[in-house]
């Protein structure tokens, strides 16, 4: 009853100036689609698994259940308790890392060719048969509670949490996926078992493998790993409404340097103007030494060590975010400069030279991301989750080059909203108070 392998024949040659990343789309014998880059130069495989939904799948009142469940996957599975599992993994020199974000539960695995079957058997158990032993639950719960208590006194965490609440309200995006001290303390083993059933299903699964494995072997491996997963998991929540308004929110905290997060409504990843917006952000605050914000706030005035902005376009909402930190007596000036630059870019746009420089940088930096089996596996899974075709790697830079200064300035006028820009400042800032535009 084995089916014939559904090899996709078209091999895509990537980047003219970059690695010949040949991505194959393979269907396993049992029918699971996955992406593969076959490269036998080093005897190991990197694998990236993603289950869409992540901590946004928490049931009502159970905030933190997906996060705690994910943290428990490596704390015992099948016949092995936490310690026996860890010893077995060490013996194989494999590594599995588990993470739960707003949009996905991800598993990144790395294992040697010579013992891949044994490594996969261990990994399979952590996905299909985690034990969720009560002593492991209590041990990991205590670690998460410790981390939550630390977050409550960390200015960066306070800023993030406050900003998320303002931006997304009651939507899961509006609160910390790790949960709160109260919700995590109240989680039961049943809640964790339920979270496991909610997350792990085939209808939200994305798989990429890169390294020393053939398509045939990869298909068998993927089936061994994932066969038996239920067809469907918990329904994803709907989109989040972005509820940001312009102004400044100050959270008093006794610390020498104020930390600020700022942001406004963003742009969806599949919006036709996304590339223009991406170039715009590179010019305005894209993190390089050349951005306007870096130049005005750091290079000219020495007001901060680092300032950057980025398009946070997630599955269920898009915001445009930035961050900066300055001494309490200088943060007001930093914010004034940022507001001025935001308004100037909206009203006057950017120059053709800036657009060209940004495009050169972005197109040149793209191939630098493909620097190893692990990073490539993650990129392939990102692409699958975003619904991008395999040939995107080869066409992405052309799309970037096609952006014109006119596109960027039209998008700047439409997207940038100086009146709607909200700052959340944590610290003891001088000359700043709560305000609404």
């Amino acid at each position, binding site marked *: 009853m084995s089916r014939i392998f559904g090899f996709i024949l078209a091999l895509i040659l990537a980047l003219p*100036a970059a*690695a010949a990343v040949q991505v194959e789309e393979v269907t396993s014998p049992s029918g699971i689609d996955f992406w593969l880059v076959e*490269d036998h*130069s*080093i005897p*190991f495989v990197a694998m990236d698994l993603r289950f869409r939904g992540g901590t946004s799948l928490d049931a009502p009142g159970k905030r933190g259940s997906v996060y705690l469940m994910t943290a428990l996957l*490596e704390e015992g599975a*099948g016949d*092995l308790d*936490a*310690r026996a599992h*860890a*010893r*077995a993994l*060490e*013996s*194989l*020199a494999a590594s599995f890392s588990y993470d739960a974000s707003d949009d996905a539960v991800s598993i990144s695995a790395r294992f*040697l060719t*010579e013992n891949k079957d*044994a490594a996969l*058997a261990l990994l399979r158990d952590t996905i299909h048969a985690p034990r969720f032993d009560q002593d492991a639950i209590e*041990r990991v719960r*205590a*670690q998460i509670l*410790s981390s939550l208590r*630390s977050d*409550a*006194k*960390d*200015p960066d965490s306070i800023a993030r949490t406050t900003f998320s609440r303002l931006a997304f309200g009651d939507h899961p995006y509006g609160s910390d996926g790790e949960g709160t001290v109260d919700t995590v303390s109240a989680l039961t083993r049943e809640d964790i078992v339920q979270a496991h059933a909610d997350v792990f299903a085939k209808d939200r699964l994305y798989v990429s493998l890169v390294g020393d494995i053939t398509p045939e072997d990869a298909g068998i491996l993927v089936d061994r790993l994932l066969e038996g997963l239920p067809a469907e998991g918990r329904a994803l929540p709907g989109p989040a409404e972005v509820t940001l308004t312009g102004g400044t929110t100050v959270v008093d905290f*006794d*610390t*020498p*340097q104020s930390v600020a997060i700022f942001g406004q409504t963003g742009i969806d990843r599949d919006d036709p103007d996304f590339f223009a917006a991406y170039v715009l952000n590179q010019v305005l605050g894209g993190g*390089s*030494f*050349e951005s306007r914000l870096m*130049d005005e706030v750091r*290079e*000219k*005035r*020495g*007001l*901060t*060590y*680092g300032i950057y902005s980025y398009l946070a376009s997630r599955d269920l909402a898009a915001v445009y975010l930035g961050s900066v*930190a*300055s*001494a309490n007596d200088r943060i007001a000036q930093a914010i004034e400069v940022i507001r001025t630059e935001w308004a100037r870019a909206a009203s006057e746009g950017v120059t053709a030279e800036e657009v060209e*420089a940004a495009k*050169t*940088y972005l*197109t*040149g*930096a793209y191939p*630098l991301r493909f*620097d*190893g*089996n692990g990073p490539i596996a993650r990129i392939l899974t990102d692409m699958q989750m975003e619904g991008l075709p395999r040939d995107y790697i080869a066409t992405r830079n052309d799309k970037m080059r096609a952006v014109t200064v006119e596109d960027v300035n039209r998008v700047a006028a439409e997207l940038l909203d100086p009146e709607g820009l909200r700052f959340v400042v944590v610290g003891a800032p001088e000359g700043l108070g709560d305000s609404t535009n």
Partner: protein
Amino acid sequence: MNRLLSCIAGLVLAASTLSAEGINDAVTSFELDNGMQVVVVEDHRAPVLQHMVWYKAGSADEPKGSSGVAHFLEHLLFKATDKMEAGEFSATVAANGGQDNAFTSYDYTAYFQRVAADRLELMMQMESDRMVNIRLTEDNIATERDVILEERNMRVENNPRSLFSEQMGAVQYFNHRYGVPIIGWKHEMEELGLEDALAFYRTYYAPNNAILIVSGDVDPAEVRRLAEQYYGVIPANPDLPERIRTQEPPQTAARRITFKDTRVAQPYVSRSYLAPERDSGAQEKAAALVLLAEILGGGTTSYLTERLQFDSDIAVYSAAFYSGTSLDDTTFDLIVVPKDGVTLEDAEQAMDQALADFIRDGVDPEQLDRIKMQMRAAQIYARDNVDSIANRYGRALTTGLTVEDEQAWPDVLQAVTGDEIVAVAREVLRPEASVTGWLMRDERVTQ
């Protein structure tokens, strides 16, 4: 017997044949006539390279009273030279689709660019230019000093754990510059001036004090040709001082500190011991310390984790750290984060009891085998990221080691025995050479 376990046991035997072949083969090294050392690490999978220059000059080489000047100078190297405007270096790298940055540590300062493989010459042209031609203004100094003070705010002043660790370091070293933070003491950073930066620059930035490391899709012969053209023409600094720092006297008094801060949510115990570093041709003791750190606090199966998190309910986290790549005596560090309701005193006592029991019981041979297996596998995984191999050579060659030492290091690690690990634990985990620190909540209500 459990089927899975027996199957794994079989594989371990098979896996023990893993060897490091292929890694050392990718490394080429040579020296230019002016004394500049060059290391090339080849990886031809993608047409990308990393170009780095490492200077044997870090914060521990700074003159007394000018702490932070090595890092300050690192920032200032992105300003103007005779040939380039301020900011032009990074802008040119970006305009060529590359990324650049730099970092400073106790023993070294390093500058790097990641670019397409056909841009090596441009990188060398610019990097060799700023080795000797920077042109700074008072305006640069004033603005960039504000930037590094904000960097200190971000990394240290805003973070009680960093402030605590700075105090631990200062107490650990009586007489060596490792007791002074890399970024500098704030009051000294505020006074750094143009002459401080230039004096450090003129003394240490010279080809005979630098190492060029190129990794990625490059041909060693081509690297040599370009290196001779751009770096080879810069004269050596004949006045380069010998790298001699004030050394520690015998440490004969256990020290304790208590650090309180209202921003602390999670108290913990930290312990550091003065420990020997890797020495050229004599890396065995450091190798034993690396394994000791792994055995005591390297993860879920480590001795401290077993004792404090599984067999008893003392800690939410425990770990041991040791990095032997250091020019002078370094530290071996332990941390225990107690569970809610467990006092720091009890946590410290449980940690000390565990250390004493470990020294009495010795090393579990199976645990040692697992760790060595992982270290062998790490060499395979390392080939996936040759930039990390390049970084390893940079750290080794700026801390008194040679290419041969670095190449021998994996075998030195594999040769360590359980008895040697216990012996080094007895020698190094000595209260008289230790600092014990308690990071505590300050319960005072501030106005």
